[in-house]
Structures are given as C-alpha cells and as structure tokens.
C-alpha cells in the first residue's frame, strides 16, 4: 500500500477496494445487490420423525445384503466374470507356457553369458563360495538394498496400524481395551513342559540361526533366512516365558537402534561400493581367501546386518500383533 497518496484519495482507488475485500473488511455487494433473507423454515416434529423413519427404512432396504435383488445380481455377475477371467487367464498362461523353452534343457536363452560369468568368475570377483549370495549381495546389490527397505517400510506400516500409543496427556489409547481382550485365557500361565523344552530348544535354535547367517557366503543360507530362524527362536522364548522376561533385554528402544544401525551400515557400505564402482575407483575392501569364514569382502558384514534387522523385525511383528507394543 503506497503511502504517498492522502488517505481520502487512496480510499477511492481500486487497490484499496481490492485489499479491503481480500481482508474481509468490506463486501462490495453488501447493500448494493438486493438480497432477500430466506423465510425461516419451521419444522414439524411429527413430520421430521416420519422422515427419519422413512430414511432409516430406505437405508435398511438398500443395505439389506440378503434381500436386495440388485446387489445380489451384481454379486452374481461379479463372481461369474471373475471365474471367467481366471479361466481365461489360466488358458492363456498354459498356452504361453507350451511355447516357452523347455525346462531342464542346458541350451536356452536364460543360460547365457550372464549366468556363465556369475558361475565362472563369481568366486574370484566376489570371494563368495555360495554363488547366489555373491550374486544378490555384490553383482545385483541394489535390488537387495531395496528388498531390506521393503521389510523396513512394512514394519513402519505395521507400527502405524497396531502400536498403541498414549496420547499427549498420558491417557492410554482408546483402542487398548479392544486390542487386548483376554486372549491368554486358555493358555497355561507357567507351563512347566513348555518352559523346560524352550530352555533347551531356544539356545539351539538361536545358535543354528547364527550359524546360517555367518555361513551365508560359504553355503546355503544368508542373512534373511538366519534372521528369520533367530526371530522364530525369540518368539518361542516369548511364548514360553511371557513378556515380562523378554522386556528385560528387548524393548522398542533396542529394536529402534538395532534397526537404525544395521540399515545405516548397509546403506553406507553399499553406497561406498556403488560409488567406487561407478567412478571406476579401486575398492579398498579385501576379498580374503575364498572358503575362509572371514572372506568375500562386504558379504559377511552385510549378512550380519540383514540378519539382525530381520530377527528384530520378525520379533517386532509378533509383539505388535500380540499386544500392540513391545
């Protein structure tokens, strides 16, 4: 708003009108355009009651799934189309498959130079005896990076759905009552047999999981399967001894930080390797002797990181499903 013009003159300009309209101080139509106030509508309570009843009756009729003919017809139509579509899809896929190259043959498009190089020089280039591990964690590592983030984002969504947070004033979430119906009622509180078996079994399961993780580059296995085994062991422990025991060593904070450190390590390590690879720099990570436990460059640490994330995630899923928290 320019201040050079005197106030009276300014009041006549377009800008003043525009800004005053914008600020909501003045409405140019008020008083200029004839506006007739509407007549007040008197509601008859009896009529209103009848209207409401009719309204409810119509609603009931429309949403009565069992007796509504149109809905039923639509449902039938939907079923028929889906069955037809599925049969069509099956026929299409079978025809397609009959034209594909034969299974088990050695000469076909899939067995080309790509898999040949993975097999022939995989040991030398990645240092991993297990060629699959070498492939997913070195040749095609970007996919695997994406994959671990799929797991991460799934955990985040499960947290959003099921975590029962206290609100600002510290009151418990209104859903808590619904989420925790007395679902342990038929479970033994301290079952001696279960606890004894768990005492023996849980360490074995967890050690087996650790073996799978550490052996991922030497034999079948790897971070994901090992992590899932460890997670299963933790879930067994939780079921045998209850939340009070596990909360001593595993809370949400533990989960958060383990996940954070493992994923950050994964991201940073892979960024280093991508960056050096793309810019044709020499990577400083030693490959080691193939076959030794400390070999194959980044694959072992990455497997450990993935294993930690997966184990914690599986346990977190279970705890979330069970009681909406850790």
């Amino acid at each position, binding site marked *: 708003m320019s201040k050079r013009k005197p106030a009276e003159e300014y009041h006549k300009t377009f800008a003043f009108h525009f800004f005053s309209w*914008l600020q909501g101080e003045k409405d140019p139509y008020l008083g200029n355009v004839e506006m007739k106030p509407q007549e007040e509508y008197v509601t008859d309570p009896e009529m209103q009651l009848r209207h409401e009843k009719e309204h409810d009756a119509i609603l009931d009729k429309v949403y009565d799934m069992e007796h509504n003919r149109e809905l039923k017809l639509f449902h039938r139509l939907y079923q028929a189309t889906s069955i037809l579509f599925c049969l069509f899809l099956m026929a299409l896929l079978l025809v*397609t498959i009959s034209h594909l190259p034969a299974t088990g043959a050695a000469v076909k498009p899939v067995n080309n130079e790509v898999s040949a190089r993975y097999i022939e020089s995989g040991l030398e280039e990645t240092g991993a005896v297990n060629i699959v591990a070498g492939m997913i964690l070195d040749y095609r*590592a970007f996919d695997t990076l994406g994959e671990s*983030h799929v797991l991460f*984002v799934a955990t985040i*969504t499960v947290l959003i*759905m099921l975590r029962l947070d206290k609100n600002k004033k510290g009151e418990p979430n209104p859903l808590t009552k619904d989420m925790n119906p007395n679902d342990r009622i038929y479970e033994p509180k301290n079952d001696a047999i279960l606890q004894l078996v768990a005492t023996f079994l849980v360490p074995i399961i967890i050690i087996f999981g650790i073996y799978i993780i550490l052996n991922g580059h030497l034999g079948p296995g790897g971070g994901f399967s090992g992590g899932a085994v460890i997670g299963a062991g933790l879930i067994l422990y939780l079921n045998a001894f209850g939340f009070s025991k596990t909360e001593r060593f595993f809370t949400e904070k533990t989960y958060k930080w383990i996940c*954070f450190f493992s994923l950050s390590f994964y991201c940073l390590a892979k960024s280093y390797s991508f*960056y050096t690879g*793309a810019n044709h720099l020499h990577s400083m990570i030693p490959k080691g002797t193939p076959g030794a436990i400390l070999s194959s460059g980044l694959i072992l640490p990455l497997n450990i990181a993935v294993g930690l994330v997966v184990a914690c995630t599986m346990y977190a899923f279970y705890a979330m499903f069970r009681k909406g928290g850790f």
Partner: protein
Amino acid sequence: MDFVCNFPFFSILISLFSGTICSVLPEKAAKAVNRIVIAAVAVMSGILLLYLLGTGESFVYWMGHFPAPWGNEIRAGILEAGMALFFCIIMYLSMAGGAHKLFDEVEESKHNLYYILINLLLSSLLALVYTNDMFTAYVFVEINTISACGLIMIRQVGRTIEAAVRYMIMSLLGSGLFLFGLCIMYDLTGHLLMSNIKEAVALLIQNGEYQIPLIVSVALMCIGLCIKSALFPFHAWLPDAYGYSTVSSAAILSSLVSKGYIFLLIKIIYRVIGFEIFNNTRIIDVLFVFGLLGMIFGSLSAIKENDIRRMIAFSSVAQIGYIYMGFGMGTQAGMVASVFHILSHAATKSLLFIAAIGLTEVSGGSRRFIDLTGAGYRNKWAGVAFTAGSLSMVGVPLFSGFISKLLFAQAAVQVEGKMLAALIVLGISTVLNAIYFMKTVICIYATTGDTWYPCITFKNMKVHAIVLLFFIGLNIILGVSSQPIVNMIEQGLAMFA
C-alpha cells in the same frame, strides 16, 4: 565421468537413508530432515537437468563394479531428470500445504513415521524414474505400494482402513501380474536390464520366434501397471483412498504415486519392448478403449458425488483415462501429449486437493456442497485457487489443462482410425468436466444463507496461501510457456529409444 553424473545415485540414496534416520529422530527433526531432503533432491535434479540439456545425451551409471549385463544400472536422460525435479517440487508443495492438517488427523506420536513413509516414497519414485533394470523396478514398485498404503491408513478412521485394504488387494493383484510378465520376459531373453532385453526382443521379432509368449508377457506387465495406476475398471479403491486420507497424502497419491507407475510403463514401452513393436500389438487398442471409457465414466461418477474430496478423486479416474488414451493412439505425438498431461494433472490435482481443504475448513469441516455454499468468500485464497484449478481442469486457455487437451486433439487428428472416437470423447469429457467443476465453483461463490462460519484471512494461513500461489504459478507456467517443455519432452523421448 563428471561429478554431476553421480546425482541420480545420490538422490536415491539420500532419500532412502533419510528414511532410516527419521526412525530415530523426534518429530520436529524428522520434519526438518524430510524438507531438506526433498529440497536437496530437487536442487540436484535441477542441476542434472541443466547438465543434460548442455550435453544433449543420456548416460548410464553402474551400481557396483560390474558393467552392463552383470550388474545393476541406473540411467538418466532429460525426461528422467525433468520428472524427478517436477515430482520433488510437487511433493514439497503438497507437504507444506497440508502440514497444518496433519495435527488434527494423525496421532501425535506417529508423525515421524509419516515422514519416514514420505522419504521412502520419494526414494522409490526416484528409483522408478531412474532405473534401468526390470527387477529393481519391481522391488521399488513394492516399496511404493506399501508406503502409499501407509499414507492412506495413517489417518485411522474406518473408511481409510477399508480403503487401504482394497488398495492393497488391487495393487497386489497388479504386482503379481507384473512379476509374472517379467518372469516370462526373463525366460525369453535371459536378461533383466532394459537395454539388453530390448536388443534380445528385437532379435526375437526379427527371427519370428516366441511371438505368443512375448505378447502375453507384455500384456501382463501392462495390465499389472494399469491396475496399479487405477485405470477405469480397476478404480474401485480410489475414491475412498483419496477422499478420506489426510490432505498431503491425497495430493501426493493422486499426483505422484500413480504417475510413477505410468512413467514406468512409458519406460517399458520405449526401453524394453520398443515403441514400434509395441504399437504393432493389439494392446494399444485395449488401452485406448479403456482410456476412453475411463474419461466418460470417471466424469459421470464425479457428477453424481456430493462430497467435494470424492468428486476430485473421481475426476482423477477421468484424467488417468486421458493419459492412457494418449498411449493408445500409438504415435509419438500422443505420447508427448500423455507425458505433458502427467505434468499438468499432477500440478492441478494437488492444487485442487489443497484448495479444497482450505474451503472445508471454513465450512465447519464438512465436505458436502450444501455446507460449502459461500466458502469462496470466507476463504478467499482457497476460493481463487480452487477456481484456477477448475479452469485448468476444464481446459481454459492460459492454464496447463488447455495445452494438454490441445496436444491430445492434435495427436488425435493424425491417427486415422481413432480420430473420430478420440475427438468426440474429448469433447464430451470436457463438457462433463465443465459441469461438475463449474457447479462447484458456482456453489462456493453463491451467496450464503443463515449459516455463518468464521472467515479466514491471510494472516491465519500464510503457508497455505503461499503454497496455493506457487501451485497456481506452476499451472500458469505450464500453460503459458508450454513450447519449451514440449520440446524437452520430445527430446527426452528421443533419448529413450
């Protein structure tokens, strides 16, 4: 290699990594990290775009130590860099415009989870834009789907949860079909990288081998992506998902998530199958027909709606129909029109969603037209912005919608068999658009009755108003200076081949 060539990789990685970081940060810090990351990615994409315009050719970037058929790769050209820049701008504006609603609709303790989802969504969009590898595309499609589902359901009312379930079921059908098509394609060619697949496909076509599996594989991938981007018969999840989620989510979902899948489809058409080969299949006719049906039925459902947010959501169905109609024409011009419409629709739809929230706020939170009467006087900025968005959607000159409709009409004239159908439906759809958008505009500028809700002035909604201004500006830029943008799109599509 120049340092700039690292930027696509950096932008994917920092957005992934910031997702991880946000999981341990408090809410305020997470918000700051989120904004900084989006801005940084936008700046990097801008620099990359300038660099690519300078050199005039695309480049591939190794993800690892191994060259083309053995390692992962990403690829950047003008169209990719431009899309990344545009996506970041829209995302930043949508986040800023809907920030004040987040407090009402999302639990306090789950705000930082929201920012994690946004970061991961950004990274998956960037990866879909830049990737040169089909399987990487599949993995990031999944990240995109899951985080989009999270964005829908973070506002936990019954409708959104139901919408999220429907969304997940449809999307998973889509990804299943996509993955099956991808597997067949892998079996036929033995490669997963786009450029290698293209060479192998050209060879197969030349030798006349495996014709049926090839077509089936392409068709499966197309159907998968169509389902995911809510093409007409598969749109049942869309109105609830867009209509009831929190406003930033609705803007981002409608303008970015579905566009990410469509962009991937464009990439597949050009870089995996080859434009010529794709146009010789019957698939484009199917896309064309469904596009036309979507344009009409989407608009008809929008007319019947009496809830403003759901009306805008149904209008998305119609607009996605436009894009697929462009694909269905099977010409370069149609494709250019589709890509331009992706930009124009993204800019307009998020503008409409964010303006609509401004209007509903001054109507006591109700979204019915009856309560919105006169809302344009009570919140002037939102009213003006909504009018601008509606004009753009209808296709009034000076706005971006006009240019995209013009491009579609021009493209349709060049195609013999489809000209009449395309032009007629374009006309009908424009009229239908005009009916429901002008109805809304008249409604919000009608004189009010007795119900008097408080006005909102500029001081109370500075951020919101500025965001709306930016959106209007973006629309007008797209509408006025369309020629350089169209040139850029043409150049980018030429780089794809």
